[in-house]
């Protein structure tokens, strides 16, 4: 027993994720490390992978955290190293200048946990991100790692494991929200061996990085989740499918697998309990459609990554026609916590139909961007205005796009919508993998729909007719509308073809591809009509349907717009008024963005006749 309480050892954490590394965090890490080692101070230091923006604070990196006081410094420079070492490592001082400035309150806060951004979050899947060194299995073990595995191997039967997961109500975080426990149960029931466990780490949504963060920052949580499933269904082989561009995720995952093998968590006779299981990494080629479960399995088998007709489910006939459980990275990361803390606890978080939390990547026109993990059932308003800090430049919120490329746009009337699987689907959007893009008044919803369809047209595998040809024609019509060639009846035709895709396409890509179009028509039909009938793009985005002019009443003659215009199309006299030469204007909108008086307006092409 210790006779006296020793001063707690300080731990310095330096973020070395992709974002912070780009800001020279490696030099800060090396500098602090050198100082600590040379001085023999009672402190330890480790690099952590706080993958891009995981606290939404990435744009304020590099980030240095000092435990146990939870001091959170951001925007650290190499020149700050000495001061941090002297004052905060050797002593208990706080350097106010480096503390995080909370945009919602205007105050500096000591710990990132005190920020508005953080307070409403609840970390389960991201519990270890930024807290541990992903290369250290001991770090993971220290935070209850592999305890759930030990628990199931020593005290639970496979059936009890399945019951616990089923009772927890955990639903797949990869998109469709299928109940995970039910999937495991169905697979366990099939009396065919071998069986396989697969982790979907394809993450094809552009701009999404939740799964990457977990694989980079906490790879063992995924491995442990898969181990628990393998025990429950009786599988001996697992695969983690990671897209090839994810270099750091591939590296960290491979290292974690190796460590786990060395410690006897993977391989033969795991923890001396007679269980055999090992995991291989498969590198994905990168097509968006490869994230679809049947395409992914085809790809693992070495065939072309195209979806196949799925009337017999993968739990019966999946990989190499053998019973297979396939879950998403984030789903896997939730599993060990549920086993450790119980289904009851998990159900107490989130909403009735969607227990637990969900990780979102909050991006677009919000002040704080980045990865957030929130309890299900939280409203969109809380996410965007409390956590996200609202819309920059006091612009008006217009819509939030959720669910990735084939998700939908949700308007401001639905800001109080609780975010869970079912309500998002009802609203005409979907959970998808958790993308969340905030749009303000300067966004054109027809152009948004066109943009996503363009992506899907390129990413559809092209195998089935409704998806390949349907997206192509819908895209053509949207291009027409944006270019002023929209016709009467286009909206109805888009709805009609969209409905056919939803029902007749082979896989989820084609079935959900019309969402961007259908949801924008549902909530912004008037904007479509303006484009088609009045040849007017209210947001001033579609160039053919935008004519900028300066409202002579509102103009104060500051001349900023004239300075900004890249073509010199604006002329006038200071303190009088300015005008735009329409023949020179390329409609880049810089003048409108610059004007503080809202004097730059768009009258569209509709008034061309009486001009």
């Amino acid at each position: 027993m210790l006779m006296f309480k020793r001063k707690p050892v300080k731990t310095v954490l330096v973020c070395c994720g992709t974002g912070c590394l780009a800001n020279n965090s490696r030099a800060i890490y090396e500098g602090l490390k050198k100082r600590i080692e040379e001085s023999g101070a009672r402190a330890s230091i480790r690099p952590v992978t706080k993958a891009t923006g995981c606290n939404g604070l990435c744009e304020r990196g590099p980030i240095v955290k000092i435990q146990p006081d939870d001091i959170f410094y951001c925007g650290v420079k190499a020149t700050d190293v000495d001061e941090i070492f002297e004052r905060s490592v050797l002593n208990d001082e706080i350097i106010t200048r480096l503390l995080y400035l909370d945009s919602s309150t205007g105050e500096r806060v000591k710990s990132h946990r005190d920020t508005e951004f953080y307070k409403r979050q609840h970390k389960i899947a991201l519990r270890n991100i930024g807290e541990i060194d992903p290369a250290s299995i001991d770090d993971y073990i220290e935070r209850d790692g592999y305890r759930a595995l030990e628990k199931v191997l020593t005290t639970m039967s496979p059936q009890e494991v399945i019951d616990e997961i089923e009772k927890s109500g955990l639903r797949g975080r990869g998109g469709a929200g299928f109940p995970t426990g039910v999937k495991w149960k169905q697979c366990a029931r099939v009396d065919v061996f071998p069986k396989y466990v697969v982790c979907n780490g394809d993450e094809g949504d552009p701009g999404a990085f939740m799964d990457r963060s977990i694989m980079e920052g906490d790879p063992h949580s995924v491995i442990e989740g898969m181990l628990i499933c393998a025990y429950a269904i009786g599988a001996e082989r697992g695969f983690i499918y990671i897209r090839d561009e994810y270099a750091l995720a591939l590296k960290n995952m491979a290292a974690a697998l190796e460590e786990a093998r060395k410690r006897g968590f993977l391989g033969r006779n795991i923890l001396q309990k007679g269980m055999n299981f090992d995991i291989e990494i498969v590198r994905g080629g990168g097509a968006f459609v490869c994230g679809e479960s049947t395409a992914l399995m085809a790809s693992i088998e070495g065939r072309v990554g195209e979806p196949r007709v799925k009337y017999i489910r993968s739990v019966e006939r999946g990989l190499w026609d053998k019973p297979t459980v396939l879950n998403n990275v984030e789903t896997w990361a939730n599993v060990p916590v549920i086993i450790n803390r119980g289904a009851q606890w998990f159900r107490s978080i989130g909403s009735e139909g969607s227990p637990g939390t969900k990780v979102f990547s909050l991006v677009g026109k919000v002040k704080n961007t980045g990865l957030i993990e929130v309890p299900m059932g939280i409203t969109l308003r809380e996410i965007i205005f409390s956590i996200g800090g609202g819309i920059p430049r006091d612009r008006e919120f217009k819509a939030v796009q959720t669910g990735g490329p084939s998700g939908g746009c949700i308007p401001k009337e639905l800001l109080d919508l609780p975010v869970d699987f079912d309500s998002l689907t009802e609203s005409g959007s979907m959970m998808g993998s958790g993308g969340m893009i905030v749009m303000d008044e300067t966004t054109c919803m027809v152009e948004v729909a066109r943009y996503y369809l363009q992506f899907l047209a390129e990413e559809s595998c092209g195998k089935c007719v409704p998806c390949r040809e349907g997206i192509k024609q819908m895209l053509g019509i949207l291009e027409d509308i944006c270019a002023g060639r929209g016709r009467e009846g286009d909206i109805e035709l888009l709805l009609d073809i969209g409905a056919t895709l939803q029902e007749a396409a082979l896989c989820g890509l084609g079935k959900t591809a019309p969402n961007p179009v259908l949801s924008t028509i549902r909530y912004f039909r008037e904007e479509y009509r303006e484009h088609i009938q009045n040849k007017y793009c209210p947001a001033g985005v579609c160039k053919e349907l935008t004519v900028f002019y300066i409202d002579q009443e509102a103009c104060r003659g500051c001349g900023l717009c004239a300075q900004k215009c890249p073509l010199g199309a604006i002329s006038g006299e200071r303190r009088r008024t300015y005008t735009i030469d329409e023949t020179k204007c390329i409609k880049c909108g810089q003048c409108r963005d610059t004007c503080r008086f809202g004097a730059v307006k768009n009258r569209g092409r509709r008034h061309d006749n009486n001009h």
Partner: protein
Amino acid sequence: MIITIDGKQCEAQYGEYILDVARRNNIFIPTLCHSDALPGQGNCRLCIVEVLEGKRRRVVVSCSYPVKGEVEVLTNTEKIRKMRKNLIRLLAAAAPDSDFMRDLQREYGLEEEERFQVYRGEDCILCGLCVRACEEVGIYAISTVNRGITKKVSTPYAEPSAVCIGCGACARVCPTGSIKMKEENGRREIWGKTFALLPCPGCGKPFITREELAYVQAKTGLEPAEILCEKCRQKRAARKMRDVFKDVTMK
């Protein structure tokens, strides 16, 4: 077990595809990418039907949907007709130069397309049968390349294939005549490759490429003299048949 298709009771085996059950019972379901020899692709989606299972009503493709219970199937509801019409309209715009699609367009009462982008000069509907046929032969000379709206059927790098044996299985199975196979002066041209044709041991007409002959020999173990053209094969079969039945008819 018994399933109901458009009100008609049909006997079906567990696991049998709805399309097969329907055809056996003379219930017509249109298909494009289906051939009896190469079934179950599920690409064209024309064979969609509605399946009523308990309270659930959903749209499935009949060529790939296995019978697992005593379901009710509706092949021609208004919803299905509407979607089929859309599918044909989409395909007709994609392959307007195919007579096959033009006929279908007329059959479904569709007018000349005026809103969709029409891809003049195109007659391939990407049904995938040619690729399947080539795979079935075991050659793998052609495949679909690219994805999404730029997908097409091609030899690797669009160059004459090194492995193609010029058998023409792809051209024969193509429903729109999109694969061009030319035969002239004892030569066959396909996929940018020209093959010399060898004569039929029966009638002397050129009919097979050297490469295909070698392939058939290897596969069947037949001697070259036994490998005949289609016509001679039929004649020989008929002759054999006559021999067998001769005694019977004489009685």
